């Protein structure tokens, strides 16, 4: 088995007296997508900034393809692409000029123009090619920013909340690009607050909480943390008080209420539905699903540190 593309060992990063990262260990295998989840302030962006050589580790070791992010920073930068939380574009330059600029700074010289055109084709950015970045919407700028991060064909790509501000169509387009990249052997490290996105893209997930790893595993493994099945039913709002159990969540919409509860398995779900029926609860809609990452996230928020 080949060495991991990204290795983080005992990483601590301090800002003054605050530990933004407090002992993080993780790895990302070559050609896979590592999803980093966490609430605001969990340390996701600090992790990405450390992995991309922008922040020095206070304690610990970080390697990208075997190169140390401090000692071999320039060599690391030749291998990585970064899309930060804000589109890093010159707003007075067009999309093509931004791509060419980064191409030349990456060392592409005469091929910078050709690669800019290739990325415009690949990501369908023709309508922005000759327009200044400052004239475009936030979502359009994010798409150009992604294209810029692909200049130089990096082998490790870091995406810090890349789909924030994108419409569903653009988001799906970005997901397809990530799929293509990993299929071609690119390693992707992705932070996101959209659990659906991590579920769709990530081979492995690390959940950060207060600078520490709260949980890790594949999406399936993480969903097992919650376990069982999630039963969701729509009932008359007036019957909420008649329930013999306390739902994990309920949402009242007019005279209807949507209630959800976690049960051990499908048999328990069936028994619960029978119980509701016997109690005279009128069920108008019913779903029995496996837990989503949203359920995992909610669960971890209530039991931090229990699943490292």
């Amino acid at each position: 088995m080949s060495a991991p593309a990204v290795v983080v060992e005992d990483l601590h990063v301090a800002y003054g007296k605050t530990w933004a990262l407090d002992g993080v260990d993780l790895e990302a295998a070559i050609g896979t997508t590592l999803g980093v989840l966490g609430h605001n302030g969990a340390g996701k962006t600090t992790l990405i900034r450390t992995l991309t050589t922008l922040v020095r580790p206070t304690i610990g070791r970080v390697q990208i393809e075997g190169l140390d992010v401090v000692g071999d920073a320039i060599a690391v930068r030749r291998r990585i692409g970064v899309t930060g939380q804000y589109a890093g574009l010159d707003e007075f330059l067009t999309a093509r000029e931004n791509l060419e600029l980064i191409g030349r700074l990456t060392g592409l010289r005469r091929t910078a123009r050709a690669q800019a055109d290739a990325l415009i084709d690949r990501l369908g950015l023709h309508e922005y090619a000759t327009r200044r970045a400052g004239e475009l919407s936030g979502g359009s700028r994010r798409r150009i920013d992604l294209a810029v991060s692909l200049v130089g064909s990096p082998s490790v790509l870091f995406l810090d909340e890349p789909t924030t501000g994108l419409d569903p169509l653009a988001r799906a387009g970005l997901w397809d690009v990530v799929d293509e990249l990993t299929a071609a052997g690119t390693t992707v490290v992705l932070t996101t607050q959209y659990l659906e996105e991590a579920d769709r893209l990530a081979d492995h997930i690390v959940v950060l909480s207060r600078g520490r790893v709260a949980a890790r595993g594949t999406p399936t493994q993480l969903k097992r943390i919650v376990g069982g099945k999630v039963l969701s039913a729509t009932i008359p709002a007036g019957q909420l008080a008649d329930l013999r159990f306390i739902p994990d969540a309920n949402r009242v919409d007019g005279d209807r209420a949507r209630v959800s509860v976690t049960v051990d398995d499908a048999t328990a779900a069936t028994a619960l539905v029978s119980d509701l029926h016997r109690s005279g609860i009128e069920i108008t809609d019913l779903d029995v699903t496996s837990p989503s990452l949203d359920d995992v996230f909610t669960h971890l928020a209530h039991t931090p540190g229990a699943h490292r």
Partner: protein
Amino acid sequence: MTTTTPSIERRRIGDQLAALTVRNLRTSARVPQLLMFSLTMPMAMLVLFSQVFRSVAAGPGFPAGTSYIVVFLTPAMLAVSTVMAGTNAGVSAAIDHTNGLHDRFAALPMRAALPGVARTINEAVFTLARAALLGIAAVALGFEFYGTAMDAVAAVVVLVTLAAAMSALFGLIGDRLRRPDVVQFAGMMVMMPLMFISSAFAPLETMPGWMQAMATVNPVAHATDALRGHVLGTATAGDTVAALVAAIGLWVAVTAVPVLIRLIRSPRVR
């Protein structure tokens, strides 16, 4: 780990610097309002100040001739407008922080100093353009150059060196404060003493002792004296060297600050 020969590395740095310089020039050219005000500001100042200081020119001890005030003020306007325009470098550095471009550059295989060097080249180009326009306006107001061709060359060198020092100083302020609006106010605070603790508007001998002491390390004061001397044909080699040393000294001090901060902030334990 990849290794590169020095010649390849030099060529790469040259390419990167050329790309960044073109980007800066292109960006400056695409903000016509900034371009117009930046280039015409010293002309407007010269016209205004030559009228305001007419009474000074009419006083005792000032050479006769109504246009002499223009000869006296033009070098000062060159130096002062170079300081004022230097704040553009600070604002553009801060804008790179707010729009995420600074981080993108920092994550590229590129020397950290290159964006600042490109800003300096940009400022030098615009300083020369401003000087040319100011020269035209000054001649229209009666300006005469009393120096030699060597004086003209030396004046250009002094002016460009001052522009580089100001670009580095305000660029550092932009990099540290990271907000264009804050940089503009901070720039004013720095700009005022640089401009007024000099002989640009009044003789240094008329100022309090502490101001005269500060003027000895003020590159704007030395540049104003040297430029005025070259225009009048009275400058000595010492005047030119003092102006260059003061500007280069400030540039070195400003360039050393980020390096020192990086060294202090490298508490890597393991």
